[in-house]
């Protein structure tokens, strides 16, 4: 069933994974992490990263037992048709909800910093329509687009280096004053930033296996962790712990305070904002695509293009549901803490354990 032009190479997979995970969560990550662990916020990032790594290895191990199958197929093989289908539907809805959050937060940030008089409905819809267009071109187009956008991601990271003269690294002190329990709970709260890794449940069989997938995933997740560390350290060093806690999107405030000495350019955050649109977009398209892919696998259709359009009204109306920005982040917290962890940790773990017990997959399957 896997068409030839839907394979993505290891190099493409790397940028694909990085840009899927790094999305709208990065703007609020310094706030959430420093709220939970004060100056130990960087620990939360590392622990969150380690959890994400182990989850991704679990998903890979699971996928390797059923070569060529996505979660929709092997969940049915492992736990039976009915429960497997329920799980797949859950995963599909989960991805669609994730899309809603991305476009809503995207719209909110854009409204605050770039287009104050443009109705948020318009910016959100524009992004969603773009996503439909890319998703209809298939997985390989997405992977190639990620490859093109990756340099932009690097450019954004580099722009933050201009805030170095104003940084005070002693803001990261004292270290290790937060209790381990708090750190663990904090990394659960900041899971939103690491969600996206579970798209591997569906994308796994499409990745070229010439190179070891573990290595590819490890490299890309390492890059994500380093990027998040960089972001959190910059934000705390620049704004202080209490400053990072007070801004909704500390990263945008850091960007706003950048002042390049001797250069006429003021207000560099417009540039960062504009480039950041791509970052939000790349995670949206992956999730939009995987959601429709899951649906098409459930209904065993040959084409999934129809589902991409069908999802639009659902994603769009859910995105418009929250009344205020406070509600958006309340829902986002609930979403990542419960729904996200269920989809990315519990379902793979459950499937893996059952497949071990029942002896499904692996050598037995062949």
């Amino acid at each position: 069933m896997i068409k030839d032009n839907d394979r993505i190479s290891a190099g493409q997979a790397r940028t694909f994974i990085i840009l899927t995970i790094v999305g709208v969560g990065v703007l609020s990550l310094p706030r959430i992490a420093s709220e939970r662990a004060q100056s130990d916020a960087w620990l939360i990032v590392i622990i969150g990263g380690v959890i994400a790594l182990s989850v991704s290895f679990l998903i890979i191990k699971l996928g390797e037992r059923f070569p060529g199958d996505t979660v929709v197929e092997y969940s049915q093989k492992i736990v039976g048709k009915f429960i497997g289908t329920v799980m797949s539907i859950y995963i599909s809805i989960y991805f669609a909800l994730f899309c809603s959050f991305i476009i809503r937060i995207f719209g909110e940030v854009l409204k605050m910093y770039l287009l104050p008089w443009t109705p948020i409905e318009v910016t959100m819809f524009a992004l969603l329509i773009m996503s439909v267009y890319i998703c209809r071109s298939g997985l390989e187009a997405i992977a190639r687009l990620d490859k093109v956008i990756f340099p932009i991601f690097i450019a954004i990271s580099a722009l933050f280096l201009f805030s170095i003269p104003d940084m005070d690294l002693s803001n990261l002190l004292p270290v290790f004053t937060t209790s381990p329990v708090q750190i663990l709970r904090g990394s659960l709260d900041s899971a939103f930033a690491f969600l996206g890794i579970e798209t591997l449940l569906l994308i796994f069989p499409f990745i070229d296996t010439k190179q070891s997938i573990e290595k590819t995933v490890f490299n890309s997740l390492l890059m994500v962790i380093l990027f998040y560390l960089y972001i959190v350290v910059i934000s705390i060093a620049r704004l202080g712990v209490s400053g990072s806690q007070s801004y909704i999107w500390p990263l945008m405030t850091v960007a706003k305070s950048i002042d390049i000495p001797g250069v006429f350019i003021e207000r560099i955050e417009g540039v960062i904002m504009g480039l950041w649109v791509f970052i939000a977009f790349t995670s949206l398209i992956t999730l939009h695509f995987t959601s429709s892919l899951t649906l098409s696998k459930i209904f065993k259709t040959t084409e999934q293009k129809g589902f991409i359009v069908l999802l639009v009204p659902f994603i769009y109306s859910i995105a418009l549901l929250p009344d205020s920005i406070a509600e958006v982040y309340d829902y986002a917290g609930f979403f990542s803490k419960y729904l996200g962890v269920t989809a990315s940790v519990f379902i793979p773990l459950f499937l893996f354990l059952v497949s071990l017990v029942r002896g499904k997959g692996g050598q037995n399957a062949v």
Partner: protein
Amino acid sequence: MLYKRVAILAIIMLMLINTACWDKIEIDDRGFIISMAIDIPEEERETGDVGRLRRYSITFGMPIVEKLVEKGGGGEKSFTLVTAEGNTIFDARNNLATRIDRRLFFDHAKIVIFGSEVFKDKSKFKELVDDLQRDYEINRKMFVGVVDGKAKDALMVDNQLNKLVMVYLSGIMENSQFNANVRSLYLDELIESLREGGRVLIPKIKPNKTEVKIAGAAIIDDFELKGWLGQEQNKYSLILEKGAKGGDVDFRYRDIIIPYQIYSARKAIKYNGIKEGKLDFTIRIRSEGRLREYVFGQHLMDKNKIDQLTSLVNKEIEKNCNHVIDMYQNKYKIDMLGIDDYMHKYYPKVWKVVEKNWDDYFCNANINVRSDSSIRRVGVVK
């Protein structure tokens, strides 16, 4: 085929015509605000309008772009001041909009000045600062100053060297990089330091008809104005807070006065534990600099003499720093030297104990200043 092409072209043209942009504002429709002076009106009066109070009187400075362009213009004023009153900053801005045909923009604001009366009411200052931090438009890299009296006066100055008074004011503050007499404070620094207990030192602007003097600082504690620092107090306070660049230390040697120019001064706090029931700190100030003057005909190229003068410089710095510390400990009873921050970062366990009554601990603490100056150069004469 031709028909198809025409159709596509027509569609593209249609798109161009129908594209709307909600946020498009032409540059000549923008009114750039480059300074704000915030005062409290003489009396808070109601206007008889629905629930409308006049609580703030804000003076906005806007450049007249046409006049800036033709530079040869000469003596004409190239900016205009407009005062608007309102319930809040935002209200004042909206009131201004009823009198000005341009859309106001705060992205390029250079300076915001508070009148000292703003601090009479704690909640008012809190409101103002929150307005400034919450607005996405406000330039976080603008300078902040305080005038003892009406803030508007600082913008009314008619300086001969720089006709644009806001650029003149921010230019002086930028000089603080080379001169420890001048303190500079960016809006984002103000916001971040107020977050911890509402405590900050804001540069004092003293205007008269033709010029201003930016020296000294207002001591703000718990969002209230507690007192003023003089020029010299400000300099040594600055050195004790975060080190400084530029600045001079005059000291007496026999019967002459010698100025020592500081290139750079760095400070380091050290906590020595508890001695005789008091917290004990050492603040080390390491400075580098050169001597500016001596006596005509006498030479300074002598290691022993320089060592002797160095110890005099050290004594002078220690004396003045002790004066500032004594002032904070006994007169104002607040920690402006950042020792709380240091304890929190480097001694979190001790900090947990002393955190609640920190100001008491600070006032009773033993703070020793050790100056370690180096006279590196003596000018071009032997």
